[in-house]
């Protein structure tokens, strides 16, 4: 049974945006699955060349980052502004860490002469991860704006829609990666 007055964290607008974004990724994933189904051997062979350590590391980094954001929201609920800001900063550092690891992975791939034209698998691998990469950048911009506002005393336990909005978006970025990583890097 649905409870009445369920609290929706963050602004309704961001949820509409999150659903639209998830739809974009969902379609991308479905098309990936269809293409993989048509060329199973090619996908399997190319997938083996991916750096799973880097991917795993990034998964841990991003989940940790999301955890920090959640802690920041919890801290703000108790009016612990400084602590909340510190967690946000920790989350941002992790997010930047993700970008760095990903860039090293790309560098490795590009140094092998692999590009969008190499084959269908690499086209998907590069497109999906690059599209997600841009979302991490976008998420970091949002988190930074939220951090600045939090630092300047813009939020408290009574007024924290903004910080929840940023956190919701960041969790979406995290969620997409949690699907993307096994789908592209692991699943045979």
């Amino acid at each position, binding site marked *: 049974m649905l409870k009445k007055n369920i609290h929706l964290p963050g*602004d309704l*607008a961001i949820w*509409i*945006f999150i659903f*639209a*974004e998830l*739809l*974009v990724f969902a*379609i*991308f994933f479905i*098309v990936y699955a269809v293409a993989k189904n048509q060329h199973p051997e090619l996908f399997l062979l190319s997938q083996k060349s991916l750096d799973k350590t880097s991917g795993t590391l990034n998964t841990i980094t991003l989940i940790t980052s999301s955890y920090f954001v959640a802690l920041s929201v919890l801290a703000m609920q108790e009016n612990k502004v400084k602590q909340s800001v510190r967690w946000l900063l920790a989350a941002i550092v992790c997010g930047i860490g993700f970008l760095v690891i990903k860039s090293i992975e790309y560098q490795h791939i590009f140094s092998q002469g692999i590009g*969008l*034209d190499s084959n269908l698998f690499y*086209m*998907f691998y590069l*497109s999906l991860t690059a599209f997600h990469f841009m979302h991490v950048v976008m998420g970091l911009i949002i988190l930074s704006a939220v951090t600045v506002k939090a630092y300047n005393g813009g939020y408290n336990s009574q007024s924290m829609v903004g910080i929840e909005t940023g956190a919701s978006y960041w969790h979406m970025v995290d969620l997409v990666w949690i699907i993307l990583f096994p789908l592209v890097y692991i699943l045979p």
Partner: protein
Amino acid sequence: MPYKSQAVAKYYFVAAIALFVGQILFGLVMGLQYVMGDFLFPEIPFNVARMVHTNLLIVWLLFGFMGASYYLVPEEAETELYSPMLALGLFWIFLIAGALTILGYLLVPYATLAEITMNDLLPTMGREFLEQPTITKIGIVIVALGFLFNIGMTVLKGKKTVVSLVLLMGLTGLAVFFLFSFYNPTNLVLDKYFWWWVVHLWVEGVWELILGAILAFVLIKVTGVDREIIEKWLYIIIAMTLITGIIGTGHHYYWIGTPDYWSWWGSIFSALEPIPFFLMVVYAFTMVYKRRREHPNKAATLWALGTAVMAFLGAGVWGFLHTLAPVNYYTHGTQLTAAHGHMAFYGAYVMIVLTMISYAMPIIRGRAAANSERSQLWEMWSFWLMTVSMVFITLFLTAAGVLQTWLQRYTDAPLDFMTTQSKIEIFYWLREGAGAVFLIGLIVYIASFFVGSKDEERTVS
């Protein structure tokens, strides 16, 4: 009218409507030439009529956008326009240059026009929609720069609202992407590649920002809903427009010699291009439903809602019909494209300009908020006549396009082009009929400016 200088918009609106009439007349000529090939030949050959039809559309929409901006920006910025004189000067330059260009198309052969205008110094002519002589293109750039300067300075000296900033972003994009019309490489792939940076990134990119901003402005005015709510929607719509629209350019890159990945990118991202249009429908109707005041200008509200719905159908649904690469493989360049083009341009851009004119014109002409009951009745009749006939034009062209795809491309024994054309002739006749009704709608629309202009203003009872 809160600011005196907003009145300059009137010139732009009147010119826009006049050129709109020209566009429709040439549309009817072409429509007839589809079935009577030598109609008006050699005076107005099909290719010239087509050029005039499409160029007039673009020019009058630009007049509309500029007029809308001159009205909108002072009111949003809460200050007079930076320079009404500049706005007026640019108006005449643009109108005369536009008229001379159209006359050039009609009076001399295109090659001669290229010669007279010294196209060989900087060749930019000869490409669909960008047929304008180089000198006209330079004129467009000058007008656009002056216009942006004027609007930008007004925003700078006044209040900066989300609506005017989004509008300014769209207008700047419009000017920037037009610069690619000067890039004319000999490599045909590159030529087509960057040609779309003008054509696609205009109509499926920056113009949508202009559309969003104008729609937001009118909705704020007619519904009285909080600006913050409308701005939030505007943000989401713009973000989705850019996410889907920019890479969505790829749906033009399937068969022109670009790398394979464009088939995937183009298909995936452009398939999502209906999302911002769908959001626009939800948002327009929600705002009107939640309205906090009854605005006496019912016609403007009708146009605003109509814009959202028709843009979604024309740009969103009809675009989606043939946007996926495997489908487009068969439908590319058939009448389906024409069907989509007609409804998308009408639904998104013609209607948003008419929405703004509907809202602003009564006020510019001295009314407090709205035209008389009788005048609005005529205007709303014209809305339905034009909109419904455009729906039929689209449906007939869609039928023609589906049949064409089937007969000429999809079957085991494909027919040749001309045999196919003769088999779908009936739909061209029907389309011409719907086009004639559209013209009647346009005449009713123009009449609405004169009918009941002495009656008392409609008030909310």
